[in-house]
């Protein structure tokens, strides 16, 4: 039996060989320095680097330090980590996939049936965990009309080309010669681009353009509804996702559903807060912000929170240098905890 530690960049792995092979892996990029691992470790093997320093400066050290002489590879840190930053594997299998180990009930799903691919969630996701791929319908199939330019009347002024909002008109400009004293050799309308808005017709100084929009006269009569369908797909990177609920809250059609790992309360002490912004930088869920003053002389609240997005990980509390933030966890949503000592350990990270 031997325990060894391997540090690769900022990632750490602690391994023990013996009857069963155990390997604890830490991925620094996923860690939010919330300190839950440090709190639950039964042998005090984990130390979290001061979060303030981590988020405010570009430190070249790992967010946590694991003492391989103390670590017994029990896996409690891996089971409580809400960010998938720690993972214990026994015989190559993650304990997160083993029934006897408790795992946090957390998930984020986007229903493909309901999603309209508006990308609001993709924009709002504080971890860039969401990718929405969408295929837009062909523009030509959503419009219907006719356009014709009378080349005899046309004076090649190029006004229609300049004004066309869809860039559908091209004038083949040329320098006139004595044998062909014209300024243009041709004028072309790209019917795939034209939306029959009739701007060209109205702007033409010599009334050379005849155009009509059929939708204006007959409504959607000759548009096939299937042609206007938007197809797409949504993808949530489970490793990056912190289950904050931004997607669920911002979705206009309620297509996103999020289950959060912890329940609790987040209390800010506005009197103590010095406005240093460390918590805002530390929060992985974009819960905190500094409101801008709306009118001169009006002082907004120092620090604004919206608990809708909070997962009560405690990263802000850990980062705050003046103790102005208090995070209380009242409930841990997990699969059943089978062992008394594990239950006790899970309970120990509740309430402060």
């Amino acid at each position, binding site marked *: 039996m031997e325990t060894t530690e391997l540090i690769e960049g900022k990632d750490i792995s602690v391994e023990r060989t013996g009857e069963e092979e155990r390997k604890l892996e830490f991925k620094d990029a996923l860690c939010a320095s919330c300190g839950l691992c440090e709190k639950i470790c039964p042998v005090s093997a984990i130390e979290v680097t001061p979060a303030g320093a981590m988020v405010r400066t570009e430190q070249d050290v790992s967010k946590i330090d694991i003492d391989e002489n103390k670590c017994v590879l*029990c896996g409690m840190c891996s089971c409580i980590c809400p960010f998938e930053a720690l993972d214990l594997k026994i015989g190559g299998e993650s304990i997160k996939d083993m029934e006897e180990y408790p795992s946090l009930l957390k998930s984020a799903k986007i229903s493909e049936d309901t999603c309209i691919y508006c990308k609001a969630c993709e924009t709002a996701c504080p971890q860039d965990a969401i990718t929405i791929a969408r295929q837009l319908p062909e523009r030509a199939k959503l419009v219907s009309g006719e356009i014709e330019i009378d080349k005899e009347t046309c004076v090649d002024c190029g006004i229609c080309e300049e004004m066309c909002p869809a860039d559908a008109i091209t004038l083949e400009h040329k320098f006139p010669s004595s044998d062909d004293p014209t300024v243009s050799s041709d004028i072309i309308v790209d019917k795939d681009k034209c939306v029959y808005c009739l701007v060209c017709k109205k702007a033409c100084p010599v009334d050379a353009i005849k155009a009509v929009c059929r939708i204006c006269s007959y409504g959607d009569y000759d548009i096939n509804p299937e042609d206007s369908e938007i197809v797409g797909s949504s993808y949530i990177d489970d490793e990056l996702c912190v289950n904050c609920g931004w997607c669920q809250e911002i979705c206009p059609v309620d297509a996103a559903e999020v289950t959060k790992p912890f329940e609790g309360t987040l209390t800010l002490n506005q009197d103590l807060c010095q406005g240093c912004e460390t918590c805002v930088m530390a929060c992985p869920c974009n819960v905190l912000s500094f409101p801008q003053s709306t009118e001169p002389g009006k002082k907004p609240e120092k620090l604004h929170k919206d608990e809708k997005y909070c997962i009560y990980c405690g990263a802000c509390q850990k980062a705050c240098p003046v103790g102005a933030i208090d995070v209380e966890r009242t409930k841990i949503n997990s699969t059943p905890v089978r062992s008394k*000592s*594990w239950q006790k350990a899970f309970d120990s990270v509740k309430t402060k």
Partner: protein
Amino acid sequence: MEILYIKVKVSVINTHGVIMPKHIVSGLRYLAAVELRKKGYTQREIAERLVMDRSTVSHYLNGRNISWNSIEIADVIRNLCPRDFSILTYALVKDKEKTRNIVKICSIRKYECNVKNTCIACGICVDVCFMSAIVLEDLKAQIDPNWCCGCILCGEQCPTNSIEIKEVEDNGDNRTY
């Protein structure tokens, strides 16, 4: 720890003249064979259990092809505290399964094993147990008292002091081999 084992080994050897480790292993096997014979095992069964040929078992049981010195040293080792017995046997045999067998057969004492609820299922005890007597079940270590040799290596390494091993009086031989 390794250095300590070697020192013990050397001192045993020195008091008994020139004897190679493999001779002591033979002595241990002899003791195990005799124990099994006492339990009524046939020579064939003994050979199977100790992974030896039957003829060697026969020689051993008839006191041939083995020096009394080796047997004497083996007997000293067997009567050491359970921890030294298992560690020394492993140092000599260099095979966990064979060590497990010999220690099990030659052990005289019986133990009561209790794992407290403070166990966090780190599995260190599973890794250190020479006897493979420990498994994890529902995030708690379970020790099979039939296989426990009383070495308490598990208890020494346990980060939460959750293991209690007590020697109990053996009322007749009810061990299951």
